[in-house]
């Protein structure tokens, strides 16, 4: 698979077709990135190492080529990431020559700002919010670019492209600015910031098809591999990683699986799959009968889970 190398980064070539073919979603995302850089002083791209944020990075490259991406990437590290994701992240930023900021949830726990959850469904997903808000304040970021999509979840379907958050990072879902045409209003007060979602209008399948078409490299855990797993509540959990709680009576077996999202290990379930190439993943998603978030336990807690987390400043 082709990676983003120095050559593709810096030297333009003449296309062999003379008329540019339009991809409406890609064009819209590039437009949004450019508005962010024009309208804000201190933007940052929130990078999780997942496919959506990797796609964002490619779009950001496209938006500003031949210049470098004009803002840093920031990873809010739960400490529960798949090791493959971290290795991938470090390689990518090195190739791009962009700045990477890492802030750790573990530090927020050590400082006593948040308390680690315990038990069967313990996860650090919720705790990320505090670390994120602290980092926004520390660096005085006025725009945080994220890879959320409206098709992911019902509360997200109501999200704006420029979503204003107050000093406490809160989302006021009933008082959002209308977004007309492609006119994005980035006017904010001191202390406020905007969450920006350039791929709002993409579906999971759009993202995967784009990764296929662009030959974008993604972490290996997205592809089918052998893994020790156990099954709980009908979901498949990794048994190789200590952070995933497993009761003694939950049996470990080896299966061929892959991950559809790569969030916090403790709340990201795998799916049985033999899709070991990007082509196979795309056709698997096309035929899929379970939504992507169906494999994330944090959304299963309650029907209103996402809305509540967003009000508190979660992405």
């Amino acid at each position: 698979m082709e990676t983003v190398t120095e050559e593709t980064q810096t030297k333009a070539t003449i296309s062999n077709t003379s008329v540019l073919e339009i991809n409406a979603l890609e064009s819209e995302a590039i437009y949004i990135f450019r508005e962010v850089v024009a309208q804000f002083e201190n933007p940052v791209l929130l990078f999780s190492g997942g496919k959506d944020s990797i796609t964002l990075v490619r779009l950001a490259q496209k938006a500003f080529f031949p210049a470098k991406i004009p803002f840093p990437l920031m990873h809010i590290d739960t400490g529960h990431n798949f090791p493959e994701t971290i290795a991938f992240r470090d390689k990518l930023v090195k190739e791009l020559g962009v700045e990477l900021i890492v802030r750790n949830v573990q530090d927020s726990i050590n400082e006593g700002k948040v308390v680690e959850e315990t038990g069967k469904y313990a996860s650090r997903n919720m705790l990320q919010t505090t670390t994120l808000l602290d980092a926004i304040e520390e660096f005085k970021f006025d725009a945080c670019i994220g890879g959320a999509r409206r098709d992911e979840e019902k509360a997200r379907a109501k999200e704006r492209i420029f979503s204003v958050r107050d000093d406490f990072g809160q989302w006021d879902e009933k008082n959002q600015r209308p977004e007309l045409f492609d006119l994005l209003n980035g006017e904010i007060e001191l202390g406020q910031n905007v969450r920006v979602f350039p791929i709002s209008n993409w579906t999971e399948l759009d993202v995967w098809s784009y990764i296929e078409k662009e030959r974008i490299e993604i972490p290996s855990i997205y592809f089918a591999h052998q893994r020790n797993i156990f099954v709980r509540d009908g979901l498949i959990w990794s048994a190789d990683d200590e952070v995933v709680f497993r009761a003694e009576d939950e049996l470990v077996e080896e299966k061929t699986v892959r991950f559809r999202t790569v969030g916090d290990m403790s709340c990201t379930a795998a799916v049985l799959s033999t899709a070991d190439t990007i082509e196979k993943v795309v056709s698997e998603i096309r035929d899929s009968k379970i939504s992507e978030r169906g494999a994330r336990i944090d959304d299963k807690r309650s029907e209103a889970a996402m809305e509540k987390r967003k009000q508190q400043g979660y992405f």
Partner: protein
Amino acid sequence: MEVLKIATAGSVDDGKSTLIGRLLYDTKSLTDDKVEAIRKSSEQRGYDYLDFSFATDGLVAEREQGITIDVAHIYFSTLKKSYIIADTPGHVEYTRNMVTGASTSQVAIILIDARKGVIEQTYRHFFINNLLRVKDIIVAVNKMDLVDYSEEVFNDIKSDFEALNAVSTYAEQQLTYIPVSALKGDNIVEKTDAMPWYDGDTILGHLEQLEVSDVQDGGQTRFAVQNVIRPKTEEYHDFRGFAGKIKGGKLKVGDKITVLPSLTQSKVKEIYFFDKTYQEAAAGSSVVITLEDEINITRGDMLVKSDELPKIEKQIEATVCWMDNKQLQPGAKYLIQHNTNKVLSKIDGVKHVISTQYGSHQDANNKLALNEIGSVSIKLSKPIFYDSYQDNKANGSFILIDPQTNATAGVGFID
């Protein structure tokens, strides 16, 4: 793949959310876990059918009250096209959401309850889609199951609606009438046996055969500069590119262009898209352009073809839809965001409020309240380069930002 954006309009309970849920379900776009969630929610409320409105109503308050509060965007695709539907609430007070939905859509579905027929609010729904020049309108006469699938009821509603259309100012607007039952799934995706007298398309059938290029707005080429790209690397030491999105027509290498506001002339040297250069790019492309000559250009400037100059004025007349609790009044100052330009402006006067009754005017009292639409004169602190909304949507529309609250207080369509 082609993307088609659709807005819905209809009064509360006409069945918008149900229709969208039905489209998703019948195109097999709802995954098993989502159908299961809908089944559960329907059972909890004691329904003996699947209430598809649960597929779209996302906020807690919406589910509790069984209504849609905010615009939701719903996605589905067929082998032919990707669809994005805006589910917009139908209450009178939510005009702003309907205008918002229509502003990004090429197609509108206006729902009418077959039992109620064309009502006061239908005028408003049609008027907004007419004002915003949404090219293709589907009039879906819903709940046909509750009127015995009567052809007569359908025809009466159709001729009432045609009466509205007679005073339309947008001749190219395409109207298609379809009798449906969103609840039962008649004529949504599947053709029904219940209405043998109807031989037209289903809703999806109609959407599938639409050419996206036919419903897109054209016009002259406008390129508003978003950013100046200066890499300052070895390979691109003297590179100066202008990033923006082409609107209206297309751009070719060698095109003679004029830069606004300086009126300097030059030619297109290269068209970049990422790491490749092209001879030609069409409307909708986000590209980087270089010019033959060294010209000082910044964000907010606009490149146009030299024989297609827009109007350049410090005073504009526009139809404004007001979206803020604080009324629009003469003398008030707002920031106008027009393309990539932000200009301070002052309201000169509000000439009249446009009534929900099609075509008639109402006394304005020189003010516009929330959700009112009116004719407004605006004075600008410096000129903008614009077209009438009729000639070029992107270059004929703007938003008004309240400099005190930063709220998007209104949207305007230039005469």
